[in-house]
């Protein structure tokens, strides 16, 4: 299966950005004729490693060799010329150009400066035939499905005598049939001796296609394994890592009686909510005072569930009842009217308005609900803002500084305050503790328990299972964009069982789908 000499090695790679150590002493090797999966959660350093390899970033430390020769690429173009081709997640081809043009754009066969279009089409057809694709090479690329476009991108990549092919999340927008088609081509290329580096979030796919797995976590190398020797459960453990429990201050508030909480009418009950390409239809009930944890790997559809519940995306179908009455959650404004709040995981793009002050960011949701004609009186604003700056310990404690000048953890608290001010009945927190320091993390976790004791329902999304277990009364598990289980957080539930569920998708029968 594999040659004894790697075609590509990366040794001792380190890379830092201001304030972030993205990669630390990472080793990676790639053999000819293998599919090598690079695994890790978002922020683990997968993309950074690929960008270092293809010359998008310089390395701070470490060496890269190709066929035993040290190399240092100045950019993807040079890497491609040396035989290291990359197909990125978003197909960056021109959908308005023809298939043949897309394959040869920038390196068309020429005669006296004029492009030889006949030759372009002939070679494009030959290349696609090699991939068993029968396409009209003169048709615009946009007339084909995303999967075909992805394969055209691969055709373009391998035409340049590629020895290393990097596929960065190629399957994230493909359906099952299209994935099978892609895998067929990957196997064929592998058998021709091309080394394929494959990045994906889908565990099943890794076990279907990869020969070898390298796991990264928090910018460090966890290890390199043969797929056959690494069970799914161990892979998930290695990706998530066991974090030291420094948060013992929080009592096991979650082990309260779920049955008592679930008496009476649910606050929000959705059934058959779903969105094509984002998350399969699911049903979920949330009661007042209940913390529902949403566990699963990144990309498993956790955020998509939250966005549907908040109306940030529209569901394709299904029903929702608030307090037992049929209603609809089709826009954020509508959800807010029903008392739902949503802290996005993407603070920068979907949370803060960087230009505005801390005060303005905090009262934004309240003001939006009142409409612009009824401004929140300045005195009331100051009261509320002061209260939450103190309660959440926001630094600097100055309501008039632009929120952009705050650290990530403090920005997160400002967003929390924005929703708490609206006195929501259901608060959706998507990764509220990611990327913030341990102190702020503890404060936010404590806050969640206090809020739920006060009767607020919380949907708590986190990649850290310990955190989910500590806070939740009920844990819904996501896997490959499906809600595969809803587990009561009783004494029998622990991180292992959740991980098993994530890895194997068992307990499927418990999900009311």
């Amino acid at each position, binding site marked *: 299966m594999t040659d004894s000499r790697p075609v590509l090695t990366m040794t001792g790679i380190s890379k830092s*950005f*201001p*304030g*972030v150590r*993205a990669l630390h002493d990472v080793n990676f090797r790639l053999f000819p004729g293998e599919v090598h999966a690079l695994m890790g959660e*978002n*922020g683990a*350093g997968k*993309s*950074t490693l690929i*960008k270092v390899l293809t010359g998008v970033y310089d390395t701070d430390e470490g060496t890269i060799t190709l066929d035993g020769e040290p190399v240092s690429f100045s950019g993807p173009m040079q890497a491609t010329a040396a035989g290291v081709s990359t197909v990125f997640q978003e197909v960056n081809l021109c959908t308005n150009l023809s298939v043949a043009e897309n394959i040869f754009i920038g390196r068309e066969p020429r005669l006296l400066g004029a492009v030889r279009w006949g030759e372009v089409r002939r070679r494009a057809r030959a290349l696609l035939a090699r991939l068993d694709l029968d396409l009209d090479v003169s048709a615009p690329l946009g007339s084909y499905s995303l999967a075909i476009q992805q394969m055209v991108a691969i055709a373009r990549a391998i035409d340049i005598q590629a020895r290393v092919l990097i596929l960065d999340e190629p399957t994230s927008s493909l359906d099952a049939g299209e994935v099978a088609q892609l895998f067929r081509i990957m196997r064929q290329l592998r058998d021709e001796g091309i080394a394929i580096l494959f990045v994906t979030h889908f565990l099943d796919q890794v076990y279907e296609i990869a020969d070898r797995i390298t796991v990264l976590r928090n910018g460090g190398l966890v290890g390199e394994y043969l797929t056959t020797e690494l069970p799914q459960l161990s892979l998930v453990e290695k990706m998530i890592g066991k974090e030291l429990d420094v948060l013992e201050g929080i009592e096991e508030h979650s082990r309260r009686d779920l049955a008592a909480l679930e008496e009476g009418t649910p606050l929000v009950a959705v059934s058959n909510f779903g969105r094509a390409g984002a998350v399969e239809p699911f049903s979920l009930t949330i009661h007042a005072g209940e913390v529902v944890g949403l566990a699963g790997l990144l990309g498993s559809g956790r955020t998509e569930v939250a966005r549907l519940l*908040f109306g*940030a995306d529209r569901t394709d179908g299904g029903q929702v009842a608030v307090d037992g009455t049929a209603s609809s959650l089709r*826009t*954020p*404004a509508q*959800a*807010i009217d029903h008392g739902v709040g*949503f802290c*996005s995981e993407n603070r920068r*793009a*979907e*949370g*803060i*308005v*960087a*230009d*505005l002050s801390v005060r*303005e960011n905090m009262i*934004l*949701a309240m*003001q*939006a*609900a*009142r*409409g*612009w*004609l*009824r*401004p*929140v009186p300045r005195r009331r604003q100051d009261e509320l803002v002061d209260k939450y700056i103190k309660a959440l310990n926001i630094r600097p404690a100055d309501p008039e500084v632009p929120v*952009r*000048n*705050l*650290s*990530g953890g403090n920005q997160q608290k400002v967003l929390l305050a*924005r929703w708490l001010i609206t006195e929501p009945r259901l608060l959706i927190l998507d990764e509220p503790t990611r*990327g913030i320091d341990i102190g702020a993390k503890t404060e936010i976790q404590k806050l969640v328990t206090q809020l739920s004791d006060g009767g607020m329902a919380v949907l708590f999304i986190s990649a850290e299972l310990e955190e989910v277990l500590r806070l939740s009364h009920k844990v819904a598990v996501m896997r490959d964009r499906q809600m595969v289980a809803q587990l009561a957080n009783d004494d029998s539930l622990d991180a292992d069982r959740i991980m098993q569920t994530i890895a194997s998708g068992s307990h499927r029968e418990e999900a009311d789908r």
Partner: protein
Amino acid sequence: MNATMGRYRAVTGHRLFWPAAVLVVMLAANTIYRPGFLSIELKDGHLYGSPIDILRLSAPLILVALGMTLVISTGGIDLSVGSVCAISGAIACMYISKQPDQNSLAVVLAALAMAFGVALVLGAWNGVLVAVIGIQPIIATLILMVAGRGLAQLITQGQIITINSEPFRAIGLGHLLTLPLAIFIALAAALVVAAFTRRTALGMIVESVGGNAEASRLAGIRSGRVVFLAYVLSAACAAIAGFMMTANVSSADGNAVGLWVELDAILAVVIGGTSLAGGRFFLSGTIIGALIIQTLTTTVYAMDISPQTSLLFKAVVVIAVCLIQAPAFRARFTRRRRNVPTPNAIADKPKEQVPA
């Protein structure tokens, strides 16, 4: 010493400092060239002098730029304001010219109300294209910019409509308390817009939508309504400016009224410190920006700069103004002198860079 430095920083760091400084330098340059430039004299109960002229002549631009400020703050742009000026002026003049008594105040008020109403409809048209249908603002308003000139021509039937109406003329050339009436109209409009945006939550919501549209949507802001309102307000301001422009010459020329005023207005907004990318807006900065542009125009005439070179002269000054305003440009010089990054340069750096 430190206290002095601190105060110096506080003054130069104020967002209105650089626009105001540019204005002062321009006035000073004019005074050096023509020592009597700043003198004002009282004649027949009216004040006369270059500063008064600048204020009076900049009134229409201030009006247009006020509305433009809000539109730009939402992240949009309104290219149609010049055409709206022409249409509103044409409707008002056409109506007055058809009446037997052109000097009747009632006639003039009716004309203004009618033209103002049409302008609101035009603004609503822009607003619907941008906020409801979702056309890019530059294209959506380009439609009315081009078609509006034709509409103005249709209203005046291709003629230049001349009227002889004292109440209408007063909008442009009348006086109140020794000062030109136009100054008061522009001032009143500025106060109304300021109250409309800062006494309500409209200003903050506009800034929020322009600063981060998706975050605003997720905070529950129905941005469509706000954006729609900004375009209507912009057209309303342009209409009043159109009345002033036509009143100045007591005639409506569909081709000439408000020609290229949208470009001057955009420039005034940008000089005033509002970013073309949307977000925070500064009405006071916009007013200073409009005064700078009018001072520049007056300077070109006052210094007898030949018409052939005047546009080039204007362009050079505008580039200089924009460069002086840019923190990045100033920081380059500050750093070279003191070799320390300015607070601005630090603040501009991203707080956290998370490679994913």
